[in-house]
């Protein structure tokens, strides 16, 4: 099998990743821009329109079930079911959470397992903040809707600030990685590819066409993993050349580094940034449940809703991680230019996180409103 036959040409792959990032990222952002040049009636079409219809349908059904549960306890089961489906659909619409998580995953060396964990953690955290806010503000303090709106506003600013920080850090790290890959390409081209050291030399020595030389992926799975790790290390081994940066290797963290406690800590910063802002629907449902004397049903509904949300976000995150993994695979076979491309994609994704954060913070990109007016 040739590298082209197995799957995608790197160029179409890059297009695919760009499309993916655009979709989950820019589309979400775009959809949230305030009206420019005077408001117009919203036109909602296509898949997004369909998702909105479903969201609204389940959201209304949610309120209906709470109303019903007041007189009929068995409606609680229906409430849980609808909460779950609502969570799935709610997360399928535009929203900055998915955009940030996906971009974060694209920018980093993440496994799909970690992608799913981060998605679940952020969704569960979102539920918990909603419950905490309503619990403290409404139940304990007897606060008004305005107070709650203001509270959410403050939380929002903190959350957006965190997104800016996470994005800035990622951009710094990934940008340096890009610069380094670019420099490697310019100065010592044969050193820049994965498995470069020996493979390239072998290739040069044997004068074989590239498709016939030894490649990482021709080994069996286990060996491949080890070899890949070793190759990765070689790729990053700049001992023979002067370092561009006095502090040494400034590019992205190694996969094994990320798997350690430090990597998780960085992951949690993304979770915190995204999960802090509770979803408006959950808050209104909780307050409504409270008004009906069914606060605990509301809490259960919110948690179940979070699980539904997690499933959608995890699906999108898996796509992002899958696209990244496949990109790496092909890019590494391509050698120096591939590495540059990979670093460019990472840098782009990192920049996207930062841009989301800045736009959200500056108010150019609106997130869900809480109080209508």
């Amino acid at each position: 099998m040739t590298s082209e036959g197995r799957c995608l040409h790197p160029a179409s792959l890059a297009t695919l990743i760009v499309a993916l990032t655009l979709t989950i990222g820019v589309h979400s952002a775009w959809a949230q821009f305030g009206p420019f040049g005077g408001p117009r009636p919203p036109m909602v079409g296509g898949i997004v329109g369909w998702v909105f219809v479903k969201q609204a349908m389940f959201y209304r059904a949610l309120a209906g079930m709470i109303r019903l549960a007041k007189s009929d306890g068995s409606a609680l089961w229906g409430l849980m079911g609808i909460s779950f489906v609502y969570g799935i659909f709610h997360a399928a619409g535009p929203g900055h959470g998915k955009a940030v998580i996906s971009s974060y995953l694209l920018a980093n060396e993440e496994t799909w397992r970690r992608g799913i964990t981060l998605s679940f953690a952020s969704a569960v955290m979102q539920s918990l903040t909603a419950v905490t806010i309503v619990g403290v503000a409404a139940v304990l303090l007897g606060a008004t809707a305005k107070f709650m709106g203001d509270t959410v506003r403050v939380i929002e600013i903190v959350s957006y600030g965190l997104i800016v920080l996470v994005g800035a850090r990622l951009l710094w790290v990934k940008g340096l990685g890009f610069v380094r890959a670019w420099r490697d390409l310019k100065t010592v081209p044969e050193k820049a590819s994965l498995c470069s050291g020996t493979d390239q030399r072998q290739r040069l020595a044997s004068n074989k066409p590239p498709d016939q030389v030894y490649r990482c992926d021709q080994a069996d799975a286990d060996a491949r993993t080890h070899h890949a790790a070793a190759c990765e290390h070689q790729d990053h081994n700049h001992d023979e050349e002067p370092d561009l940066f006095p502090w040494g290797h400034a590019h992205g963290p190694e996969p094994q580094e990320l798997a350690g406690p430090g990597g998780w800590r960085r992951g949690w910063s993304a979770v915190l940034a995204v999960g802090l802002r509770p979803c408006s629907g959950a808050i209104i449902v909780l307050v409504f449940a409270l008004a009906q004397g069914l606060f605990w049903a509301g809490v259960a509904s919110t948690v179940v809703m979070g699980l539904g949300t997690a499933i959608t976000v995890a699906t999108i995150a898996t796509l992002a991680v899958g696209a990244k993994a496949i990109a790496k695979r092909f890019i590494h076979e391509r050698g120096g230019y591939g590495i540059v491309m990979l670093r460019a994609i990472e840098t782009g994704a990192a920049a996207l996180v930062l841009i989301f954060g800045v736009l959200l913070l500056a108010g150019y990109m609106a997130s869900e409103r809480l109080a209508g007016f």
Partner: protein
Amino acid sequence: MTGARLWLRASVLTRLALFIVACSGVIATKAQAHPHVWATIRTELLYAPDGSVTGVRHVWTFDDGYSAFATMGIAAKTKGQFTREELQPLAQVNVESLKDYDYFTYAKFNGKRQQDVFNEPVDYWLDYDPQAGELTLHFTLPFKKPVTAKLLTIEVYDPEFFVDFGFAEDDPVKLVGAPAQCTVSTEKPYDGNFLISQNLNRSFIPSEANIGMGMDFANKISVKCP
């Protein structure tokens, strides 16, 4: 590399799905989420004796979920009931915040979109229906200058679609003191609110699953005075 291998196996379908998602990204929308508030509209257009329109009087009834949210923390003498006086501070907050949203009310004179034609609201208050658990906001928007346009169009909608406005079933629009030859017509986005309960069953019919296509949520009032 597990992800990559999974990706390779599922390639054709997954890539197709991804393509579809990407396409939907192109169809950008301004609405950012589904509505969280439902408001049933009744509107009166107020006329001066000379036949000009002086203002728009709105009566908006909110759904019980949002009403519960809006009334939380408001002290009431009788539990579960709110008097107009008890709700007045909230009404104040409402009309003040509504300013940021152009009162969700957009005017066209002879088909031409107008900006900044309303003064601050007057005669505003809220009342609460304890049976339905619904809050109703009353307010009047005076025109800065009385309107003499032959064709006056008032549209009520939330561009961000956080609030789903819909005309009341019966007599949603009234002309108060209008010359006899004036005629009024209303245009709903489509039948009823975005999703009022009676439409709920309809939405479950798969053939109507695409009602999201090209939706226009504006509630339009047109008055012709030849």
